[in-house]
């Protein structure tokens, strides 16, 4: 794997060796030399630099938060970071022309993944910016009664898939604009903006093994959907999003989309099998585990489980060598538990007990098995420490207790 085992000297060189697929790391834990000095732009004095220490990093099971760059994406981007650095809007020289050509190729790659025309793809800084552009469209409405429906394609917390095609059909028949934030869905499940009658779609680079800091918004041309630009300037991207398009980043996004189109079916099969393995093993070894979200209309790579009588953050702390996320209040800055779990009617104590497992393109069976083993061990241990588990074992109905208000 390209940069995972890089020492300080190697990391400063440019590596262009193509790697078809990331190799499974040993024992599921990745070795990396810790050296924060390498972040400085000025190379430190080799003589006085301290010995870098070896540190094992956690397994990564949090792909809904972000994904690593696919090595093929990095390969596609590197030339544009190093050699072909022209501004794609420069009209008068080869640097501009080759950069523009790369940008348009990337645009075609994104369009192809969702069944759109390249003229309908506008590059942005990410799905958040795309969402803002789409919602602001309300203010640019043609008719006073025009409204907008905005729905996530795949939910990032529980992995539930929304019935996009049905929603699209209803919106189309009622002449209402339909926007979907497809950040967690693009390249993972088949999407077609025409079959599903989608008018606006937000796309995120770093959720699909592409670079961070880039995304796109799909804006339907027929019938035309008018949007209002969030930022004004030089009129790039048909005036809908001024600012120099960052060629290396969009090349990365394009490459990520193309790779996703190739790998979608295989990834989905493999991830489904791993997800099944994780859920079965956990459910067979532990009682009182609930899977949150509709099990039928569900993207397999996002598994949200509630472990009754064990609080989420304490489980994350116990699973210190696996990178995970929780819907518990403790892990959010606001101390409010997950609004998604609340919306689907999950009991509040179960919302505090939820953990999200993310399985992605590079997740190995070994990593899943390790995570499951540790999870089972620590849930059992934390239940031994839990007054709620003790009360339930004694036959007490927790709902009958008058808890102290705090």
């Amino acid at each position, binding site marked *: 794997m390209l940069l995972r085992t890089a020492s300080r000297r190697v990391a400063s060189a440019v590596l262009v060796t193509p790697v078809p697929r990331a190799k499974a790391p040993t024992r599921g834990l990745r070795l990396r030399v810790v050296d924060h000095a390498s972040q400085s732009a000025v190379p430190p004095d080799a003589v006085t630099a301290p010995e870098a220490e070896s540190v094992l990093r956690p397994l990564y099971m949090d792909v809904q938060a972000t994904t690593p760059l696919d090595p093929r994406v990095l390969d596609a981007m590197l030339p544009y970071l190093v050699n072909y650095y022209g501004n794609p809007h420069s009209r008068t020289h080869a640097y501009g022309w080759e950069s523009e050509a790369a940008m348009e190729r990337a645009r075609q790659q994104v369009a192809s993944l969702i069944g759109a025309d390249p003229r309908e793809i506008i590059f942005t800084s990410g799905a958040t910016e795309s969402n803002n552009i789409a919602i602001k469209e309300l203010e640019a409405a043609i008719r006073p009664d025009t409204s907008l429906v905005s729905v996530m394609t795949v939910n990032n917390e529980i992995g539930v898939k929304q019935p996009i095609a049905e929603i699209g059909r209803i919106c189309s028949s009622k002449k209402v604009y339909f926007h979907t934030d497809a950040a967690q869905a693009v390249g993972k499940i088949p999407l077609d903006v025409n079959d599903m009658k989608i008018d606006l779609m937000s796309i995120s680079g770093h959720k699909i093994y592409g670079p961070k800091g880039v995304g796109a918004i799909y804006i339907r041309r027929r019938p035309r959907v008018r949007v209002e630009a969030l930022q004004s300037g030089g009129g790039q991207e048909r005036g809908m999003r001024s600012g120099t398009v960052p060629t290396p980043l969009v090349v990365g996004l394009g490459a990520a989309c193309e790779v996703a189109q190739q790998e979608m079916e295989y990834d989905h099969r493999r991830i489904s099998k791993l997800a099944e393995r994780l859920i079965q093993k956990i459910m067979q070894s532990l009682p009182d585990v609930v899977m949150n979200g509709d099990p039928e209309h569900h993207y397999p790579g996002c598994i949200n489980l509630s472990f009754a009588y064990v*609080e989420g953050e304490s489980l994350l*702390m116990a699973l*210190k060598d696996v990178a995970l996320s929780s819907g518990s209040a403790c892990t959010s800055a606001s101390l409010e538990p997950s609004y998604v779990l609340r919306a689907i009617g999950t009991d509040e104590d179960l919302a505090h007990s939820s953990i999200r497992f993310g399985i992605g393109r590079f997740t190995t069976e070994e990593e899943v098995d390790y995570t499951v083993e540790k999870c089972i061990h620590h849930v059992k241990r934390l239940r031994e420490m*839990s*007054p*709620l588990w003790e009360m339930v074992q004694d036959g007490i109905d927790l709902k009958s207790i008058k*808890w102290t208000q705090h």
Partner: protein
Amino acid sequence: VVLVDLSISLPAQVVDHYENPRNVGSLDKTSKNVGTGLVGAPACGDVMKLQIQVDEKGKIVDAKFKTFGCGSAIASSSLATEWVKGKTVEEALTIKNTDIAKELCLPPVKLHCSMLAEDAIKAALADYKLKQEPKKGEAEKT
């Protein structure tokens, strides 16, 4: 030897209370010498059960806890059981949540865990006192 660097997210003291637990368990709540405090609520994500065993001289000789809550909550209640041991019932009343928070290096967002631990101590002490005066009219207020 390999280390996993968690110092950026959780203080080492907090993790230590989970990895090397002391005083996790239960005392006989029906015993007259045992005071049991149960504070918090599952809906809040924080429930602490703290129990103390007091000898005839009014000294706390044993303490046990069980907690449903985050790492800081577990550590706060664990530390509370460590601190009450060896103290008299009156001395234990002086344990402050600020001391617990300071000892565990709790960030501001986790201060409520130390407050709940202080509540748990007080609840256990109150329960013990209640048990010492069974038929003498008005019970002490908790």
